[in-house]
């Protein structure tokens, strides 16, 4: 493949991926409002379009046209930069996430991801670990008590849970023996006794999945760990002072992060794009992996929203104690046991 | 392959006892402490007996290696244990007498402070002594050798708050060091020339060398150096001075360490190294001469001592001299035989003396005793057995062994050894019966000054916890726990010699046989085998009679002087004048040593080493440099501004200098 083709293909993929991602973000918001609405025994958005399907569009338009307020004592450069940082890092991490096998279109053989690197997981982790800057800086630069508290909480919480998150992944890495997301997915191909898929979650990584789930909720500042933006105590936490498109950026960043986390969960624990796909015509066979992938992400996001509609919020010291005194030891124990089993099996 | 005997357990068992008592004994009751101490030393005895029981079925000598200790090139030293007839005898003596004295000590030390400490030390001593006896190489033996010295030091200074006890401990330690120095050099010579310290290898190599009858060579040097070590440990001339002072320790210690076991280590070592001595007649001769002189010398001092324990101490030195005579004329088995019987009766003598001291409430001066035989009959009768044994009356144990030594001395050596030996035997008999009469017969002389002597006794233990406070109530027999060992030892003192030196010799001969004997060679040339027994038989009878006569005359003389005509000794003392003075003052040996060695040493180290070197050179250097440092620091301390950035500035400047220098070095 010549360098020109490479750049062309890459640009196409980036555009497509970004489009899909942003659409997904928009409709995750819609999904959340709908699902939470039904959980709370109401309808959710219904007015704009059928089933309120055009609601995200309307929201976007609203955000764009709202007045962009900047508080007078805010530290302006960072106040402006913070939401951008948050969104950029949230969107970037999708670039190394594969959504399917290699495909050949018009004689060009290319993977179904923006770029295929063999330390993909590390890159995702690195980028998500930078996402905390957006939140922290937003909280600080707003020069507001609520924001500062939210920012402090967010940075402490994210740094704390990042450790458990990373450790919960190490078990999977040991099983797959690679940092490449594609390799990890490939390691989960096949089934036990013909019907139990060899997903990591069924390979003894159940506890790891649980830890990942908890840590991921904390990393994305979602209920039950949404202390940084706890609206009943901090108004809206770190984005109290934000409005209009800047607020929208934080909002998009949060949902993009959710999707990234869902992608990672699917890739690492739920077998990625593997599923029963040995049927149908060739075109269906080519599309099916992507379909399974999307289904799993949808299930994961649904779980996210379900939890949000169900669980109350932690107290802050409970949150820290849970992360350091429960999740972290559990993650270490899981890691040790997994390593032992792998070592003994070898 | 014979089953493993686990020889290492024998020394280690007492060590465990020592460790338990030493570490936790403070919290234990006296009963627990004594149970532990007795239990572990008893276990060692049981093991020794078990080994003795199956002794005939063993192939000897037997070496059991535990682990390698040192390995350097070809040179290797193991923690290995060596069992043959010689070490078996020593093993039984040490564990048996040791256990008895342990039992005795329970009664003797019951009222003392530091009870657990005493038994911990005692067990520690057992450990080192058994290591010494069972070692299969000179280095391990040396460990035991040093270790018993340590235990001895600790026990002599057991009442460490008393100055005389503390300095006696130090004296024993230092004098022993002199001997150890010789021993060490002997070991170095062995390493250099034989490349090994293992008994088997050393003896094999030495066995291949010719006897140094013509001149003085390596073997003579080694032998003499070993003898220096032995003289230190076994209190021979000229290194005997520590033993009388060692009587500062508790009496059971004197019995166990300074009579029965430790001081005989030198004899054991000489016997163990007989291969070397057999090929070094000159060294052997030195051994014999030293032994003879010591025997006579100590005996004469013993005659005039008034402290009951001091008499026994000089008696011990004298008897050790006998053993060395035995070894010195290549009659090692006779020496070891005497060692064994001596362990019985001298241990008994000390224990009985302890019982006497116990009875009279801490008094040690015989002049303040007398007439005790009715008050303490058990002690009296056991002591009588021991006295007759040491004096050499048949059929007591001492007779057989002493006779064997004298006979061998006459046969293998010279009549001079024999003559002095007999004279010494006479002296021995005399002073022992003197002790006997003074202590047990006549009137009790302490009564009149009862309050005074208690006071004196208290004074003599100034500062130390008075050991026999409960003795105030008057003269009384010791408790049963102290009498049991006395009775057993008395039995051994009577019967211990019945085995006969011939049979003993035969039993030991595999261990002491070395092919070449310095004397046997000449002997065989001189006399035909056929005529030997008859000739020997005749003269042996004669000689035996003479020595019995010596013993009897000693008894008679003592009776005459101290029972019949008690005023006579004073007159004799006056008549002898300055000689008597010299003897009473132990020939001024301590004073001579103090003047010749100690004082110059102290003066030299005070003037030269302390004032000259330490104070004027070393201390001055330090003081001046410290002063200089302070002056420089006074100037420099202004750099210490407390400002972080200034420090960083200095670091950067310094780094620049270093970089510049390094680059200058690189481009030069």
């Amino acid at each position, binding site marked *: 493949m010549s360098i020109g083709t490479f750049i062309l293909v890459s640009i196409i993929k980036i555009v497509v991926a970004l489009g899909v991602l942003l659409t997904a973000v928009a409709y995750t918001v819609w999904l959340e409002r709908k699902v939470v609405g039904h959980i709370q025994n109401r309808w959710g958005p219904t007015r704009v379009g059928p089933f309120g399907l055009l609601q995200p569009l309307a929201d976007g338009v609203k955000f764009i046209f709202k007045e962009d307020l900047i508080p007078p004592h805010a530290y302006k450069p960072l106040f402006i930069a913070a939401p951008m940082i948050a969104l950029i890092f949230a969107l970037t991490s999708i670039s190394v996430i594969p959504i399917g096998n290699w495909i050949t279109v018009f004689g060009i053989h290319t993977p179904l991801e923006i770029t295929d690197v063999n330390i993909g997981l590390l890159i995702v982790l690195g980028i998500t*670990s930078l996402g905390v*800057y957006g939140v922290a800086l937003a909280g600080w630069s707003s020069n507001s008590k609520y924001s*500062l508290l939210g920012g402090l909480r967010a*940075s402490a919480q994210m*740094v704390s849970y990042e450790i458990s998150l990373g450790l919960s992944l190490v078990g999977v890495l040991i099983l797959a023996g690679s940092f490449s997301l594609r390799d990890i997915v490939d390691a989960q191909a096949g089934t036990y006794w013909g019907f139990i898929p060899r997903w990591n979650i069924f390979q003894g990584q159940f506890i790891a999945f649980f830890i990942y789930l908890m840590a991921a909720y904390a990393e994305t500042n979602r209920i039950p760990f949404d202390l940084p933006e706890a609206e009943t105590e901090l108004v809206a936490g770190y984005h109290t002072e934000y409005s209009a498109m800047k607020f929208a950026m934080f909002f998009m960043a949060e949902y993009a992060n959710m999707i990234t986390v869902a992608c990672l969960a699917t890739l690492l624990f739920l077998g990625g794009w593997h599923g029963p796909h040995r049927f149908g015509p060739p075109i269906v066979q080519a599309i099916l992996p992507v379909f399974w992938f999307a289904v799993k992400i949808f299930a994961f996001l649904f779980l996210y929203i379900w939890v949000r509609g169900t669980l109350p919020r932690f107290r802050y010291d409970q949150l820290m104690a849970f992360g350091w005194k429960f999740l972290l030891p559990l993650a270490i124990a899981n890691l040790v046991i997994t390593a032992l089993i792998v070592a003994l099996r070898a | 392959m014979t089953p493993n005997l686990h020889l290492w357990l024998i020394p280690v068992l007492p060590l465990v006892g020592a460790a338990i008592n030493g570490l936790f004994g403070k919290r234990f009751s006296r009963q627990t402490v004594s149970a532990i101490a007795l239990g572990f030393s008893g276990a060692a005895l049981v093991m020794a007996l078990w080994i003795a029981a199956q002794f005939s079925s063993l192939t000897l000598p037997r070496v059991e290696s535990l682990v390698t200790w040192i390995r350097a090139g070809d040179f290797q030293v193991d923690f290995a244990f060596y069992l043959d007839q010689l070490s078996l005898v020593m093993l039984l003596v040490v564990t048996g007498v040791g256990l008895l004295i342990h039992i005795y000590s329970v009664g003797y030390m019951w009222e003392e402070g530091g009870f657990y400490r005493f038994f911990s030390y005692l067990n520690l001593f057992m450990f080192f002594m058994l290591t010494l006896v069972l070692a299969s190489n000179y280095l391990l033996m040396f460990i035991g050798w040093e270790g018993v010295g340590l235990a001895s030091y600790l026990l002599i200074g057991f009442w460490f708050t008393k100055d005389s006890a503390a300095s006696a401990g130090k004296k024993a330690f230092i004098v022993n060091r002199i001997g150890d120095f010789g021993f060490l050099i002997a070991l170095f010579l062995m390493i250099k020339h034989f490349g090994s310290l293992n008994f088997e290898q050393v003896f094999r190599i030495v066995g291949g060398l010719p006897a140094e009858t013509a001149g003085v060579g390596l073997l003579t040097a080694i032998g003499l150096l070993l003898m220096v070590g032995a003289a230190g440990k076994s209190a021979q001339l000229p290194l005997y001075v520590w033993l009388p002072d060692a009587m500062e320790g508790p009496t059971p210690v004197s019995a166990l360490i300074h009579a029965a076991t430790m001081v005989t280590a030198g004899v054991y070592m000489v016997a163990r190294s007989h291969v070397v001595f057999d090929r070094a007649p000159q060294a052997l001769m030195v051994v014999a001469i030293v032994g003879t002189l010591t025997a006579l010398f100590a005996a004469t001092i013993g005659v005039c001592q008034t402290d009951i324990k001091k008499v026994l101490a000089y008696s011990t030195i004298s008897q050790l001299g006998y053993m060395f005579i035995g070894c010195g004329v290549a009659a090692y088995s006779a020496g070891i035989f005497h060692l064994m019987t001596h362990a019985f009766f001298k241990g008994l003598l000390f224990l009985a003396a302890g019982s006497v001291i116990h009875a009279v409430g801490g008094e040690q001066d015989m002049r303040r005793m007398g007439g005790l035989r009715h008050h303490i009959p058990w002690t009296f009768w056991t002591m009588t057995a021991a006295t007759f044994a040491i004096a050499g009356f048949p059929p007591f144990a001492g007779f057989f062994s002493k006779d064997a030594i004298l006979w061998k001395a006459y046969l293998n050596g010279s009549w001079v050894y024999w003559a002095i030996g007999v004279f010494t035997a006479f002296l021995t008999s005399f002073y022992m019966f003197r002790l006997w009469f003074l202590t047990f017969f006549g009137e009790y002389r302490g009564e009149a000054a009862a309050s005074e002597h208690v006071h004196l006794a208290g004074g003599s233990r100034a500062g130390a916890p008075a050991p026999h406070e409960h003795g105030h109530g008057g003269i009384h027999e010791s408790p049963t726990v102290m009498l049991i060992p006395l009775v057993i030892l008395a039995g051994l003192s009577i019967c211990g010699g019945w085995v006969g030196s011939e049979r003993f010799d035969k039993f030991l001969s595999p261990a002491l046989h070395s092919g070449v004997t310095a004397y046997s060679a000449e002997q065989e040339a001189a006399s035909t085998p056929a005529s030997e027994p008859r000739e020997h038989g005749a003269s042996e009878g004669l000689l035996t009679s003479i020595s019995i006569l010596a013993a009897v005359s000693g008894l008679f003389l003592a009776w005459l002087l101290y029972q019949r005509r008690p005023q006579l000794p004073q007159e004799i003392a006056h008549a002898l004048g300055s000689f008597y003075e010299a003897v009473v003052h132990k020939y001024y040996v301590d004073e001579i040593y103090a003047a010749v060695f100690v004082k110059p040493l102290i003066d030299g180290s005070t003037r030269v080493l302390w004032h000259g070197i330490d104070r004027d050179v070393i201390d001055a250097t330090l003081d001046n440099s410290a002063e200089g440092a302070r002056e420089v620091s006074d100037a420099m301390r202004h750099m210490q501004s407390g400002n972080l950035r200034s420090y960083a*500035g200095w670091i*950067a400047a310094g780094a*620049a200098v270093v*970089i*510049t220098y390094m680059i200058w070095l690189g481009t030069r």
Partner: protein
Amino acid sequence: MLHLLVFSVFGLVCVAGAVNLLVQRHPINSALSLVVVMGSLAVEYLLLGAEFVAAVQVIVYAGAIMVLFVFVIMLLNAGEEERTKGSRVAMLFGIPGMLIGSVLVAWVLLEHSGTGNVATGALPGPPKVIGWLLFHDFLLPFEVTSVLVLIAIMGAVVLASHPGSTQQDKREG
């Protein structure tokens, strides 16, 4: 050529970040400049092939250590730097010393080691190999460092906790 271009671009970003760290008076700006330096250094590592080092650089340095810095700045609400003149020594000796040292070193480096070229991705350090080295050849240093980290954790907890707060916790608990 591309290599040199990328190197130069990120090297310049790097130096710019470092200089900005010095120039900025507000610690948070300095911290963010340092993050930029670290990010561009990660790219330089990638250029040299050390992908794992680059990833760890981002995760640990930029993602954890610098977050800690920002956190502390926020916590203490550190304001702009005061321009006190506390140290003449730093100016009189430190700065010249630093200049002399760095000029000398730069001269030596350019003069004496300029011949060897480093290819793009010269030495890939795949995680597997790195891990193998860490757990075999460098096991002892690894363990020692882990102990160091443990001590550091405890030290940080002890230092940062309010004096007397432990007793309070106990009473409450």
